[in-house]
């Protein structure tokens, strides 16, 4: 069992239960606050068009699957989900791989000017995307990458890189130096040390960084809208933005679509949290 910040021993069993119960209740209400609007979306997505504006009733008398039908079968959303998955997965891979190499170098290897480097990397992320979007678009057009998934994935990877680098540098820093030096003494090159020894230890950091980059890329809208043009290349948020016609906003369809888009990410989060929680239990830190 992982030693943590919680109670140990059997002191005051009932009081502990009270504290635990209270924490639980608070967590439930925090969860409801987080979930509330999403639940409301779910309810909206099964309301018929007439009921959308009526309040009461909160729950529709008759649930309808017409929105989901329209969204999944009659719109390009399904294809765009695949595109989003490809883009997000590759952006995450590139970002994490490149980012962890760079973070490792910044954390453990003696290169010059680390604060400057970190600052520079961060400042590229500080610049507002709206000013960058036009030159970036022209650059992509010049490279012949207009309307391709590569352009979007690459852009996402680059703009998520600062977060990945900063996070992973911090996590690598927190790993004990001895682990790295032990690996080096064993005859590994720095790269091998990174791959076989340090990365497994930095799993919570990697998991968090990967999840955040994935979510960023999955939900990113402005670059995805600008760099893509045809239906077959669109990503999911852009597909949702194409639901409204002139003036008309099909609320039920958008609610259904937004749930469909959110679920894969939620599933991924569920998968990843195991790694986040793992902590330093791998047993590598011997006394």
């Amino acid at each position, binding site marked *: 069992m992982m030693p943590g910040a919680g109670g140990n021993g059997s002191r005051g069993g009932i009081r502990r239960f009270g504290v635990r119960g209270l924490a639980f209740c608070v967590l439930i209400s925090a969860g409801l606050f987080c979930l509330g609007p999403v639940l409301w979306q779910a309810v909206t997505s099964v309301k*018929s*068009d*007439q009921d*959308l*504006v*009526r309040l009461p009733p909160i729950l529709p008398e008759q649930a309808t699957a017409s929105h989901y039908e329209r969204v999944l079968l009659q719109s390009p959303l399904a294809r765009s989900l695949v*595109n989003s998955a*490809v883009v997000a*997965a*590759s952006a995450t*891979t*590139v970002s994490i*791989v490149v980012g962890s190499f760079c973070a490792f170098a910044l954390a453990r290897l003696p290169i010059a000017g680390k604060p400057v480097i970190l600052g520079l990397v961060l400042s590229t992320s500080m610049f507002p995307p709206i000013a960058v*979007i*036009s030159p970036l*678009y*022209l650059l992509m*057009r010049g490279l*012949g990458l*207009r*309307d*391709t*998934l*590569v352009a979007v*994935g690459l852009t996402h990877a680059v703009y998520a890189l600062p977060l990945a680098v900063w996070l992973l540098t911090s996590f690598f820093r927190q790993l004990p130096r001895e682990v790295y030096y032990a690996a080096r003494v064993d005859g590994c090159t720095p790269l091998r040390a990174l*791959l076989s020894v340090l990365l497994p230890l930095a799993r919570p950091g990697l998991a968090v960084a990967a999840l955040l980059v994935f979510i960023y890329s999955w939900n990113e809208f402005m670059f995805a*809208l*600008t760099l893509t*043009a*045809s*239906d*077959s*290349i669109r990503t999911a948020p*852009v597909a949702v*933005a*194409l639901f*409204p*016609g*002139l*003036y*008309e*906003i099909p609320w039920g369809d958008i609610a259904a679509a937004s749930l469909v888009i959110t679920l894969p990410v939620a599933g991924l989060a569920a998968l990843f949290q195991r790694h986040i929680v793992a902590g330093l239990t791998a047993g590598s830190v011997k006394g």
Partner: protein
Amino acid sequence: MIARVILAFCAVFVLSCTPAGDQPDGRTLLVFKHGKLSGDGTVLSNLLREFEQRHPGVTIREELLPASSDQQHQYYAMNLDGGQAPFDLLGVDTIWVQEFAKAGWITPLDTLLPLGERDQFFPGPVEAATFEERLYAVPWYIDAGVLYYRRDLLDRHKLSPPQTWPELVRSAKLVLDAEQDADLVGFVWQGKQYEGLICFALEVLRSNGADLWEGDQERARAGLRFLRETIAGHRITPLSMSMADEESTRRIFGDGRALFMRNWPYARSLLEREGSPVRGKVGVVPLPSFPGYASAPVLGGWLLAVPQSSPRREAAGELIRYLTSPSVQRLVASELGYNPTRRALYYDETLAVARPGLKELYPVFLGARPRPVTPYYLLLSQAVQPEVSALVVGLKTPRETLEAVRRHTERIVGQRAPSVSAEGL
């Protein structure tokens, strides 16, 4: 292991790259860029396929942009400015033609629509598309503000649809007092800080013989005062209208919670849909005016233009001619509910069957005046939107608002060639 994963993704990437601008040998590929239309997307696609059949050797690729006017403007600005725009035909909002023409981004289309034929179309869009006496875009579909009202409520209180704004206020107050329904409001209109607000403000001011940017100040102030008083004075409009756009007002009215609504004609078919609470109870009339002046609906709608950089201008021109031909306009009007720009179609019998309310809209579209026809329009609009919005919520008085508007106008347009100060814009 990691290497394998990376390789796999690279493979997927490469496979999913569709080369853009693919040209089948010998054939011309026309790229038609436009905002998403409401309704069934296949109607337009079928029309384009038919064009392809009539013109062997031409393929058309339709590329959609979000329906939001702002996003489309952003896209066009980025692409047209760089030269070599990757499309051959674009849909433009009526308020953009002047600035695109001045920038040299779109090419004149006088040959497509010679002077003699222009009066087959409504004069408003043609005026908006004419820059330095040359026509730069062909009207595709048209829009203008109209007044919706609840026929059943007015009938119940023996009132007829108002023809002046004071009459509208009186009717609204009467009905609200009589109905005593906490959920019912008198008059809903688009008051959010965006282009729609300028449209409505212009409709009110122009129907008082004034204008926002120039002209009689007294009557302009009176018009502005009317806007604010619907909320603060007469209380027939809720404050939440200062955040309302077309869809919000349509939903409020469509749920039976409003007596009058100012909106575009698109809402009618939605209000008459199966299951709508106000089905069969809605009437549409031209907007009211102030006593002694005429109703002044503002022109909306979209046109078709060809970028200057396109090497396929003739083919694009053919497509424009096709899309604005009477038969295609008739089809689009009956299937998608968009209003045709050809005047003759409003007396067309087959169309009248599919769109019974169309003939009533004819005088409205005929009298619809465009917003200021100048390349400076978007600058003017952006400068003025915050002022009018401040008026709507009561942060500024009509006098202050008008002064600010005139000051901005002077700063933007007053100096000549070409000095557009960014200060305070």
